[in-house]
């Protein structure tokens, strides 16, 4: 049986650790499978909504300037590990942003999946169908 976990990020980056926690927990949740029985599994999905979409901007220089890993790096790691990453289309547009402004892939790391920009209704469906929702 597969357990589905939805990690929903609604807060801005860096001021607090919330986004970093969401991303690292989503990535770490996959390792839980080593403790599960055959046929069991964990399927995380990460969704960025509201001001949380600003976590996904490209060219974050947090490591160069403050020596901390950027949300961009965590996001690319999530894509590398085939996590489903959703960004709310309406909220992206509300901030005057497009796919060109955000991290859509991690090709340089060898990731095969890409970020999906989707209507909020699609994110709502993920929340409805998840076994657990973690809101950051």
């Amino acid at each position, binding site marked *: 049986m597969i357990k589905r976990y939805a990690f929903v990020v609604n807060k*801005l*980056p*860096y*001021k607090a650790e919330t986004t970093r926690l969401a991303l690292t927990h989503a990535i770490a949740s996959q390792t839980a499978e080593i403790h599960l029985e055959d046929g069991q599994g964990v399927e995380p999905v990460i969704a960025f909504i509201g*001001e949380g979409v*600003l976590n996904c*901007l*490209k*060219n*974050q*220089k*947090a490591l*160069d*300037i*403050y020596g901390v890993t*950027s949300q*961009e790096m965590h996001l690319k790691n999530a894509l590398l590990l085939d996590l489903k990453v959703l960004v709310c289309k309406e909220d992206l547009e*509300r*901030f*005057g942003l497009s796919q060109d402004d955000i991290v859509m892939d991690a090709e340089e790391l060898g990731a095969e999946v890409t970020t999906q920009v989707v209507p909020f209704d699609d994110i709502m469906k993920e929340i409805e169908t998840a076994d657990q929702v973690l809101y950051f």
Partner: protein
Amino acid sequence: MKLAVFVHEYREPEVLDRLKAEKLGIILVQNGVYHATVKKDGQPSPILSRNAEFYALSEDLATRGFSDDKVDPKVKVLNYDGLVDLIFNDYEKILWL
């Protein structure tokens, strides 16, 4: 009084309405830099309509993925050295809101 205030969050501190100063400087740092860069629903942040001088910290802009050309023209971009000079040379009192 020449007063500079640090705004570090992407919300407008209510106390801003009550401050009176001969010269007011609003220094956008940390998540406050979103006021200088993001247009919500196509509108610049209301904080930029205030009668004040505006500054944003370049390190906090770059950390969040913003280049200087994304900054509203009303806002002067400063690095840490420039910020220290500003505080010591242009303002008498500093508040962290």
